[in-house]
């Protein structure tokens, strides 16, 4: 793995490197006892980690949500599903590789897993279109959600997208219609749906997979109506104000919980999910299992009603 750190993480990474150097010296050169030094630095590291990561600003969380080493949908599927068979295509136009979907087994039970997929290197990023879907991506997702309904399999969606792709062909093929269609059809599905926002919950492209009975956010993920850069370009007239826009739009998991937009925050390993994939996946797995068990007690009608009530009450206004 290539080491990559964000600016504000730099002191943490530097201290980690010094400690590992000292440990290395100790084993290489016999007779040198550095135990005290190492212990002292490890204490310092512990404190520093806590200081850096316990009070992250909204923009810093945005950067962690977009961290190039952040686990993506296929990483989570690897760690969560006992087996996963990917299924492709919207049966109408194409297979959009910015969304992966398929049938898996999770804790022994079948589960339809659908999520945005970003790429790790340049070639992959292009293939995945940076996690920005075309209409056929949302239509593939919907096709497989209906397949899940057909065979009474619950659905887990993992959301990590900067937003729906803004392009000529996307518009020609009905980007708006594809998103809207998912919203109304997901509202009517008679099986349990759980959504976890794992990274970027970027506007309509995120919501198109997120009309669920339970919507969870990972601790360092974001959920927003427009990207901070897009908002800054419009309201501040420059993308340079993305940080201010992220603050103003209140994009973090705790903001979303406070606004009644999500149901729960899934804790991440200290420093972010990218520092410990298995721990991050395990936290998701636990939460998803609990919610699926609860939802499993509802009838098909109750599931539809539960989802309706969840979204019906969202909004802040005054008046009768």
């Amino acid at each position, binding site marked *: 793995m290539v080491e990559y750190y964000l600016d504000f993480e730099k002191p943490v990474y530097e201290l980690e490197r010094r400690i590992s150097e000292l440990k290395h010296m100790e084993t290489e050169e016999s007779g040198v006892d550095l135990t005290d030094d190492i212990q002292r630095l490890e204490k310092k590291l512990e404190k520093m980690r806590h200081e850096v990561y316990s009070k992250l600003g909204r923009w810093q969380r945005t950067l962690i949500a977009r961290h190039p080493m952040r686990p993506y949908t296929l990483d989570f599927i690897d760690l969560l599903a006992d087996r996963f068979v990917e299924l492709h295509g919207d049966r109408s136009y194409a297979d959009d590789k910015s969304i992966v979907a398929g049938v898996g087994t999770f804790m022994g039970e079948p589960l339809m897993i659908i999520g945005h997929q970003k790429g790790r290197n340049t070639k992959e990023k292009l293939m995945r279109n940076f996690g920005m879907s075309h209409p056929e991506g949302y239509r593939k997702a919907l096709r497989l959600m209906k397949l899940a309904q057909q065979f009474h399999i619950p659905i887990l969606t993992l959301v990590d997208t900067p937003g729906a792709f*803004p392009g000529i062909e996307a518009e020609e*093929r009905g980007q*708006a219609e594809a998103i809207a269609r998912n919203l109304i059809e997901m*509202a009517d599905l008679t099986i349990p749906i759980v959504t976890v926002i794992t990274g970027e919950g970027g506007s309509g492209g995120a919501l198109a997979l997120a009309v669920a009975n339970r919507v969870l956010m990972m601790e360092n993920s974001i959920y927003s109506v427009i990207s901070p850069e897009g908002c800054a370009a419009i309201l501040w007239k420059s993308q340079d104000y993305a940080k*201010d826009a992220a603050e103003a739009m209140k994009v973090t998991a705790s903001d979303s919980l406070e606004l009644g937009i999500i149901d729960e925050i899934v804790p991440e390993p200290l420093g972010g999910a990218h520092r410990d994939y298995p721990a991050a996946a395990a936290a998701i797995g636990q939460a998803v299992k609990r919610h699926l068990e609860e939802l499993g007690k509802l009838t098909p009608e109750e599931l539809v009603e539960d989802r309706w009530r969840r*979204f019906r009450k*969202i909004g802040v206004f005054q*008046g009768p």
Partner: protein
Amino acid sequence: MVSWFRRRSSRPERSDRRKVSVPEGLWIKCNNCGEIVYSREIERNLKVCPKCDYHFRITARERIDLLVDAGSFEEFDSSIESLDPLQFRDSQKYFDRIRTSKKKTGLTEAVVSGSCTIEGKRTILSVFDFFFMGGSMGSVVGEKVARAIERAIQDRCGLVIVSSSGGARMQEGALSLMQMAKTSAALAKLRRLHLPFISVLTDPTTGGVTASFAMLGDVILAEPKALIGFAGPRVIEQTIRQELPEGFQRSEFLLEHGMVDRIVNRKELKNTIAFLLDAFTRQ
């Protein structure tokens, strides 16, 4: 969202909204063909250019007058108003923007809802006003649209929504995004009862409004040459770094690509809606 905003913000001093749609004065220049036309003639022509058929943007009140049987409109939910849940401020406070829009339009929010008759047919009607913060959808607009749908369900009648919107309202963050899900889920309930929803798209309809209830009409009608799309043209241009083809994201383009049912001239709009509502609600 981007295109209208830029256009409007470049001339922030225009306080009289009538000037934005059809400038006062005897003669005005058409935005589309550039012809100088007698303003009375445009007014008489339902604010459509007699030379090129350009449909000027009109206010929610003008639109309602155009569509309903005279005196039949009974507004509801006009006293639901915006709060400022995020304490949002950019160069201006959100609250100040709201206040300015209220003053400018005489409305309490960007959508006006009511019950009415259209050629005698009882109908629930919601109309967007683009002059109120670009017709953007925040908590109040989402709530009013959801309630209009619920009213149609309660009254067992058809629903017409005339959209004109830059999309979701950024100043309410993800709360605005959630209104897309709320309104679409409400339409799922309407659909179960076989009650018709006619969606009318007018210039401009973009972003989160297009990507939710506006594209979910049982029938989708569009006014000629209206800008309709998901992403704003400037965002697309910046992303793909090439110029957009002529007529891109206009009503005619959407018709060609199978995204709307029909383009309807303003003069024919009421009659077309009435015909469809009648056909769908005989039984």
